[in-house]
């Protein structure tokens, strides 16, 4: 038992034994302050506790795909696969990719502050897609920034030139 829990237990016991009014009177006498002041301090304390609980509630919980996928049909399986890809960053690997995804689908993207925070909204939106669309998204290769666009095209052009040169020399 923590010290906080022991205190809460003893206070509860005192309240049961003597009642709220007697406890407050005794506390006011001991601390040499009025009962009214004690009441207002209690109110402020209760309000602060409520606010802190509300704050805790508003902090985002990590998104769980099971909250929107409850079936094991094909659509469910595709959504889980896409979610796994999102989590290991092979689907929409960066925030800009998430923003672009929303933009391409004509959805507002200005309020998206981070990739992680967009997880829930993204999958709630994607869950409205049909199986064909989901398959198409899964089949689209992830943009990998480690490959340069110039490099890709240059390799392709040089590959063709080498083939031609080899043909000519053989």
């Amino acid at each position, binding site marked *: 038992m923590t010290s906080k829990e022991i205190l809460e237990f003893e206070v509860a016991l005192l309240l049961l034994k003597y009642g709220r009014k007697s406890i407050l009177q005794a506390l006011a006498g001991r601390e040499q302050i009025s009962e009214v002041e004690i009441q207002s301090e209690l109110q402020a304390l209760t309000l602060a506790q409520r606010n802190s609980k509300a704050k805790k509630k508003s902090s985002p919980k990590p998104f769980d795909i099971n909250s929107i996928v409850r079936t094991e049909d094909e659509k469910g399986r595709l959504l889980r696969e896409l979610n796994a890809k999102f989590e290991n960053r092979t689907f929409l690997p960066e925030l800009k990719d998430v923003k672009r995804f929303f*933009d391409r*689908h*004509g959805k507002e993207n200005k309020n998206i502050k981070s990739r992680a925070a967009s997880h829930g909204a993204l999958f709630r939106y994607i869950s409205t897609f049909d199986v064909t669309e989901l398959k198409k998204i899964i089949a689209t290769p992830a943009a990998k920034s480690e*490959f340069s*666009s110039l490099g*890709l*095209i240059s390799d392709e052009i040089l590959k*063709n030139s080498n083939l031609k040169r080899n043909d000519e020399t053989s």
Partner: protein
Amino acid sequence: MAAISVSLINMKGGVGKTTLAAQLAHTADTKRLRTLAIDLDPQANLSQALMGARGYVEHLNQKKPTIVNLFEQYLPPTISSPSPTKCTINDVIIKNAGYWSNTMLDLIPSRLELSNTLKNPTGKERKLAKALTSVVDNYDLIIIDCAPTESILTDAAYHASRYALVPVKPEFLATIGLPLLANSVLEFKSENSDHALDICGIVFNHSSSYSDGPETSASVREVTEEAKKNGWHIYDTHVRYSRSYAKAAREGTPIGSTSHVRTNVPRQFSSFTQEFFKSIGIE
């Protein structure tokens, strides 16, 4: 109604034909016009700008057909198809190649081997126009991006086009391409008197970002006089230089969806596109 076909032509390179073609294609797609973009330049920059470098290289690696096959009129043998097969325009069209998820923008990509067409050009100048006849009813707009030198490919573009859009960079050397173009168009029209090919307008492209200096003003004045002589329209809006256009080509995006684009850039481009669509009869 059959599609309106527009070629982006200038005998000078580096005036922004491909950038303009890609952005016009995206704008038409955004306007929900059924659009076909045709890359008629062996450098295949329009294909790369619309498909992205990865998509384009994958297309080539998978030996999928390009405009080259349309000019050669056959698909070479492959492992799954062991003899040459006839190539139709539908074989070379990539469906839904645009940016938006519900895109109506299709693309006929190009590849470097298109330059081989120039080595054996006989009878190829009408092949594109003929092939397009079977799909024109499927589109509202056809945008053709041309190579900068006059060749069989320019002729192919003329034969397939109702209008030519001429981007001009307001610099002395860049404006020299204009009389060459005038000559080329006149020659084509005299040889093909039944063909209605009109220049829908000249657009000053890649002009200075902020204000025009004396060199720009001089070039604009000269081009305006040349245009007046030939009865060509000049669009009021100048498409001013912005690094975002280059970025849009890399990202494969419409200018308005390009990362960190300044709001005035898509606004100005939109002003030009309104003029352009009006000039070809699309409101």
